[in-house]
């Protein structure tokens, strides 16, 4: 099972500067656990108290996971996951 995860610039120090990494897992939560086991520290940047951080957007293919099943969203072989920090401020 192979899933491509696109990493934003700000998190590339965790992935040895790789823009995309390979992962496995049948839910988004499992994929995050898997990428954190490969690149320690990534989960902490994505999650807070067990939920996705408010200002981190995660998309499966073209869909924002907030409109899918959040961390419980099912992932299929060949899916592409994109992580993008919100562009936001006050």
């Amino acid at each position, binding site marked *: 099972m192979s899933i491509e995860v696109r990493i934003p610039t700000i998190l590339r120090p965790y992935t040895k500067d790789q823009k995309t990494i390979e992962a496995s897992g049948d839910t988004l939560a499992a994929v995050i656990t898997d990428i954190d086991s490969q690149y320690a520290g990534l989960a902490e940047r994505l999650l807070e108290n067990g939920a996705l951080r408010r200002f981190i957007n995660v*998309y499966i293919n073209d869909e924002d996971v907030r409109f899918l099943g959040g961390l419980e969203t099912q992932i299929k072989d060949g899916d592409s996951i994109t992580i*993008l920090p*919100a*562009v936001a401020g006050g």
Partner: protein
Amino acid sequence: MTLEISRTFVDAILEQSRAEYPDECCGVILGPLGADKALRHKPMVNAAHSPTFYEFDPKDLLSLYREVDDADEEIVVIYHSHTETEAYPSRTDIAYASEPGAHYVLVSTRKEIAPATEFRSYRIIDGIVTEEPVTILD
């Protein structure tokens, strides 16, 4: 570092900030990857529709990054307006800044300085704000 930006873009950003007042306006200027040249202005929708907050719509954000990747471009400038305060990054601006390579431009159209405006540029890296000179190209 200096931000070099054409007067056309400066005028367009100030015009957008007036048009969207009292809400903050936002957008980006794109350029060829690695060149640090602000060449293509793209106003964005402030999904927060707020006078004190801005956020690119998450769907627009994905399209923007896809477009930038496909065209071998980079986000050179990320800008937004402050409508009642000075053109300096707020605590939330600093907390959410996530493009260490971008020039973060703040404009202010606050009443106290009208008709003058402020147009200032910063690097925001790991929570550290560094103001940089702006050169406006005619």
